[in-house]
């Protein structure tokens, strides 16, 4: 038994950990140690990757590549491979993962089980749109080969299936061509949500990556920074010889030890005293950078990956992330209502991210992305106060017919879950009876 926490550090319960290392033995381990749950790199915030006092199957030992076709960009690998390892190997060869979340330190299996999305959702969809097939071990001891033509239902349940349909052992992914590791970026400050939506609408056609940061303490006058970027082709990058030196410096930096939060501060460093000045300073700093620029994809896409264990700054009680998506219609009102509720509560969020999703339904039965606008907020855990605020946010999301993201959740009530995920009953038929998580017990009863 070993204490295990998810990224939000809200709990640290004991788990019976089984390390998976040999892909041909996965089904045997599952059959022998069940009920249990797969655990990737623990980058989910809440309880979706936890199974307190029960079995946890660690997958990061399943880290082998299996095959790559340089003509088509199809990659077959084990499910414990980190997205970063794929990116660092293939970007220099002209291939890249089409979709990555805000951190590359997650596993392929975790990316599939939460059907993660990136800043380019409006252009290319979510991670699952690029998964061609998987092999899935079940606790019965069998291993199934899944794809979209032979087994569409189990495939759709496994994509975004929160690890509840079996353990993904291997996956076949479609990579996409890239001309360089560089992005051409533009940073634009905005005032108020109307301006945000204008920018988002104007950018979706011509910009592949869009995201914005919003100062959620500014209330009605919500101000923020909108960032958009496009990959640079090889000739474009070659036309800027100064990039070579920057790239060399960047590689030096990323391959040396990243900075690390050295200890858990006794109190959260994120509090009323620090938040307001931080948000103001961040806004002013980013505003200074407004205009066009060139960025390497790593610092642009994964700004926090070089600050290891940054989640410790929230102190020993951990923190919640609250991410919702609400339909575009009424979306602006709903987001404004959430910002107002936060401003009124005095519970700031260190990192508030606002982005529009494209007009496409995800393929997974429980996938989070849907057409609309998504807001992600971090709240230090201050007990009852924090929970009450999130209850108020729930009401707004429910009213707007939105849903919350399970990868981030640790507390949503069952009715909100059921309302947000209408394909739930279809999904339940595909669950593996030998798999259970803290979240599945909380939201599905078993």
């Amino acid at each position, binding site marked *: 038994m*070993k204490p295990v926490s998810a990224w939000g550090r809200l709990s640290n319960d004991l788990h019976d950990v089984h390390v998976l290392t040999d*892909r041909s033995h996965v089904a045997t381990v599952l059959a022998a140690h069940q009920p249990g749950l797969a655990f990737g790199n623990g980058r989910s915030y809440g309880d979706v990757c936890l199974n307190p006092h029960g079995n946890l199957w660690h997958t990061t*030992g399943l880290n*082998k*590549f*299996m095959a790559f076709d*340089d003509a088509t960009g199809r990659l077959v690998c084990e499910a414990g491979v980190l997205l970063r390892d794929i990116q660092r190997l293939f970007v220099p060869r002209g291939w890249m993962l089409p979709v990555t979340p805000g951190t590359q330190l997650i596993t392929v299996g975790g990316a599939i089980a939460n059907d993660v999305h990136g800043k380019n959702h409006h252009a290319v969809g979510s991670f699952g749109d690029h998964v061609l097939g998987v092999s899935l071990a079940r606790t019965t001891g069998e291993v199934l080969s899944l794809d979209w033509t032979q087994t569409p239902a189990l495939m759709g349940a496994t994509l975004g299936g929160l690890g509840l349909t079996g353990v993904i052992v291997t996956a076949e992914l479609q990579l996409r061509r890239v001309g360089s590791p560089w992005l051409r970026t533009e940073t634009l400050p905005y005032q108020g949500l109307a301006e945000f939506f204008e920018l988002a609408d104007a950018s979706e056609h011509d910009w592949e990556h869009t995201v914005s940061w919003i100062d959620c303490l500014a209330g009605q006058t919500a101000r923020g920074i909108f960032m958009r970027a496009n990959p640079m082709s090889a000739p474009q990058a070659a036309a800027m010889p100064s990039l070579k030196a920057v790239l060399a410096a960047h590689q030096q930096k990323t391959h040396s030890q990243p900075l690390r939060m050295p200890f858990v501060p006794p109190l959260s460093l994120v509090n009323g005293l620090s938040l307001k000045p931080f948000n103001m300073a961040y806004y002013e700093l980013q505003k200074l950078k407004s205009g066009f620029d060139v960025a390497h994809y790593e610092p642009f896409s994964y700004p926090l990956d070089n600050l290891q264990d940054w989640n410790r700054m929230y102190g020993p009680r951990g923190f919640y992330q609250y991410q919702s998506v609400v339909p575009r219609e009424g979306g602006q009102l709903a987001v404004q209502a959430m910002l107002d509720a936060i401003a009124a509560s005095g519970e700031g969020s260190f990192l508030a991210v606002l982005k529009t999703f494209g007009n496409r339904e995800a393929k997974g039965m429980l996938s989070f992305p849907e057409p609309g606008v998504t807001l992600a907020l971090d709240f230090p855990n201050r007990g009852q106060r924090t929970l009450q605020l999130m209850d108020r946010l729930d009401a707004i999301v429910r009213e707007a017919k939105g849903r919350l993201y399970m990868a981030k959740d640790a507390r949503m009530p069952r009715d909100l879950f059921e309302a947000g995920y209408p394909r739930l009953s279809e999904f339940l038929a595909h669950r593996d009876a030998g798999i259970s998580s803290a979240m599945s017990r909380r939201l599905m009863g078993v």
Partner: protein
Amino acid sequence: MQHMVIIGATSAMAEHCARLWVQAAPVRLTLVGRDEARTRRVADDLRVRSPQSDVQVMTSDFADATAIQRTVSHIVAQAAVDVVLIAHGVLSDQGTCQDDLLACDAALQINGVSPVLFAEAFAKPMVAANHGTIAIIGSVAGDRGRKTNYVYGAAKGLVSRYAQGMQHRLAHTGVKVVLVKPGPTDTPMTSDLKAKGQKMASVEQVAKDIVKGIASGKPVFYTPGIWQIIMLVVMHLPRFVFNKLNI
């Protein structure tokens, strides 16, 4: 291309060394394992990482001197060897070894005798070529016997003493002998210890040290380096103190 040979290629440490090698430059790699399917999987992974490398797979009986000789002769006949990394081993359970003489025998064979035989078989052709590095993975456990794992420790101690003698013998040749002494490392072999909460070095870090140590031809080194100091203390504890320790 450099020719690297790995004995025990499915060991996590060896596999990570191989990843670092192919990442630095295309190489010719000969992977030797006991289990063909598992060794092939390591090879496939390395081929994806480095399509320009030439990765070969071989299997061998690791407990039989004749088989070892045959394997090594076959490898050196294919291409001159630049580096051989002898990395295999199993973390035998001390209790089982005490109860069961066959288990004890097997543990001594695979962790002690077998690596020595491989090193000896490679030494001859490499000395004839007057070139190359023979690296053997020992263990901090080989430095001082202690009640919780002295069968494993004794086998690793054999490897240490053997490497020392071999270094003496080859001191004036072009062949280098490198002895690596890793502390507890986070690998499948130690997952039980990890589950019990023991702090361990990451296999990536240890592999980095090994690759660097081999390149520089250091005769003996600990990884992570802190173990050099720890073992200095452990080895010099007076027996009356040491015997009181529950380690």
